[in-house]
């Protein structure tokens, strides 16, 4: 025990030659809380002091405490000494100790080989295969969700309205404060940095264009999606992953309920509604932040800002921004849910899958956003 000094039973054991018998008087305590790992030294000492072939008696008269570990170590000691055909006896055991030694002897085995760890080359091959497998698996998952969702839209009774509403609350309404705060701050930062740079060109009025266009087209939808991926996508992965580990997913399937119906589709629908609304909210609050900072740091007042805004920021910019949101929503919900289903049977894998869900959805969101920019510039929106 940590709080007590640890004794070394091997050192406390005395080894003597008595007549033509080697006598080993065992120390009093042989339990896991002593230094049983020193038994090898005792064996070497005995072998050094008592010539080969001389019979040995392990004298347990002083032995007051021995547990299974101690009995194991002492049996191994006896076995080690027996090598070479020497006669070894353990004497002086109480009945209880005797039965313990018998029990241990009856159950001694070599430890099994540890689970095989794959070689680096195999791991590399397996991981590149896995990437391909994962991609195919994810796409087929996406397809499955998409097809059943369309089916549910045709037969609206299949939409689990209550689950959708509950998800709207947690993924949408509950996210308002954090998204509001962050977009307000982003609006302030852009206005401040922009005003400073534009002033050097005497182009102060363009601050309205800068704040409006950058927020509505890019920053508000992108930032909202990233926050929601961290907040909600990870929660989806953790929830479904835990349900996998506790066999709740299996229970659903056995009851004839499709995990997609119950676990995935309500989340997808909820996020398809929530994310565009959150984006609009981020647009408004972000622009308010920009307006505030503009009036504070430049000569442009709120009235001019608001009058100028509809003239320089076309409706398309707003629609382009909000239009990206459902795509991001689909990415976040499906990546989160899919990762959850990939969790195997340990708490560790739930953690790993939750991390991956955020990393992958943020990655996909940014890639898709870049793709949108390219497409929009080609079609000239």
């Amino acid at each position: 025990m940590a709080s007590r000094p640890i004794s070394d039973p091997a050192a406390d054991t005395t080894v003597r030659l008595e007549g033509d018998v080697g006598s080993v008087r065992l120390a009093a305590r042989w339990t896991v809380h002593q230094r049983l790992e020193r038994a090898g030294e005792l064996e070497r000492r005995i072998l050094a002091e008592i010539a080969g072939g001389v019979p040995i008696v392990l004298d347990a008269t002083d032995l007051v405490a021995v547990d299974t570990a101690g009995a194991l170590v002492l049996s191994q000691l006896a076995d080690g000494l027996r090598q070479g055909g020497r006669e070894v006896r353990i004497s002086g055991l109480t009945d209880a100790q005797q039965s313990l030694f018998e029990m241990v002897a009856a159950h001694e085995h070599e430890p099994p080989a540890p689970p095989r760890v794959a070689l680096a080359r195999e791991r590399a091959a397996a991981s590149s295969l896995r990437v391909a497998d994962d991609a195919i698996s994810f796409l087929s998952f996406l397809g499955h969700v998409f097809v059943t969702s369309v089916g549910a839209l045709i037969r609206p009774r299949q939409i689990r309205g209550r689950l959708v509403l509950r998800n709207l609350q947690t993924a949408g309404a509950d996210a308002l404060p954090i998204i509001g705060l962050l977009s307000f701050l982003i609006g302030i930062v852009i206005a401040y940095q922009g005003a400073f740079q534009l002033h050097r060109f005497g182009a102060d009025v363009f601050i309205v264009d800068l704040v409006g266009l950058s927020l509505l087209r890019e920053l508000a939808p992108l930032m909202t999606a990233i926050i929601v991926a961290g907040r909600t996508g990870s929660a989806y992965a953790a929830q479904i992953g835990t349900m996998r580990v506790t066999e709740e997913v299996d229970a659903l399937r056995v009851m004839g309920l499709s995990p997609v119906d119950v676990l995935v589709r309500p989340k997808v629908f909820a996020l398809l509604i929530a994310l565009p609304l959150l984006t609009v909210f981020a647009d408004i609050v972000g622009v308010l932040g920009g307006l505030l900072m503009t009036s504070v740091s430049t000569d442009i007042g709120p009235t001019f800002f608001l009058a100028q805004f509809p003239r320089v920021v076309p409706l398309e910019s707003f629609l382009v921004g909000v239009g990206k949101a459902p795509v991001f929503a689909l990415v976040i919900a499906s990546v989160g849910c899919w990762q959850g289903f990939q969790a195997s049977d340990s708490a560790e894998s739930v953690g790993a899958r939750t991390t991956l869900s955020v990393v992958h959805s943020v990655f996909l969101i940014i890639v898709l956003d870049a793709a949108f920019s390219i497409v929009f510039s080609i079609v000239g929106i």
Partner: protein
Amino acid sequence: MNEFDRPQADASENAVEVRDVVTRFGRQVVHDGISFDIRRGEIFALVGGSGSGKSTLMREILQLERPTEGSIRVFGRDLQSLRGADALALKTRLGVLFQGGALFGSLTVLENIGLPLREHTTLDPKLIEQIGTLKIALVGLPPEAGSKYPSELSGGMIKRSALARALALDAELLLLDEPTSGLDPAGARALDRLVLQLRRSLGLTVLVITHDVESIRLVADRVGMLAGGKLLALGPVAELENSADPFVRGYFQGAAATASRTVHPPGRAGEPGGGGPAIPRRTDDLWEE
């Protein structure tokens, strides 16, 4: 011999003393004044219907929860005032089998058993592995089970592995929450024999929560029955079976009747005693019906 190495002197001859324990969860009263002792070297069975507060009482003995009122002493130490190193030292004298096993999913069975040994002793890794392998054999698992992860085990194998972990430090007080549930009758009896053997060889004290009447008859020195928040009966099995209280008597008769009906279902194989191969699970079509 080092004087610190003597068994820690406890004034008390009881391993556990439960005094007037009251436990409430909100307005639900789970224990309503419970007192009893578990003597050293005794195998004490705690019985009662589901939700009668058996597991909760065990968690209180383990210092995982505190009773709302009353006191619990373990090896003479009052849990209420126990802190820090003393609380830890007491914990290393207890071995626990949780109802659901509670094996660590990221460790193999052998590593699970080795964990308390690695943390609380100076033993070297090789010896720890050998001790773990011995415990695996003791609980009736094949040696290969040691290199499996919990997710690759059947329910009964999880129970046995968790018991092996509970035995890792050769604890003085062993707390078993439904050890035989999920085991086939033969496995359950083997486990009973193991508990008796351990008590004989190591002199340990056992608190066992169980619904298995046959197991109680085989191993228990005394039985405590929880019902309605009270300790309804306390005494040797034979005494409770012939109790004047029809409820207490009925528990054993009723349980025996149910047991004989459910324990040997025709044509249903019990838990395989060995380590069958883990059933590979496909993960790619999980979302399909």
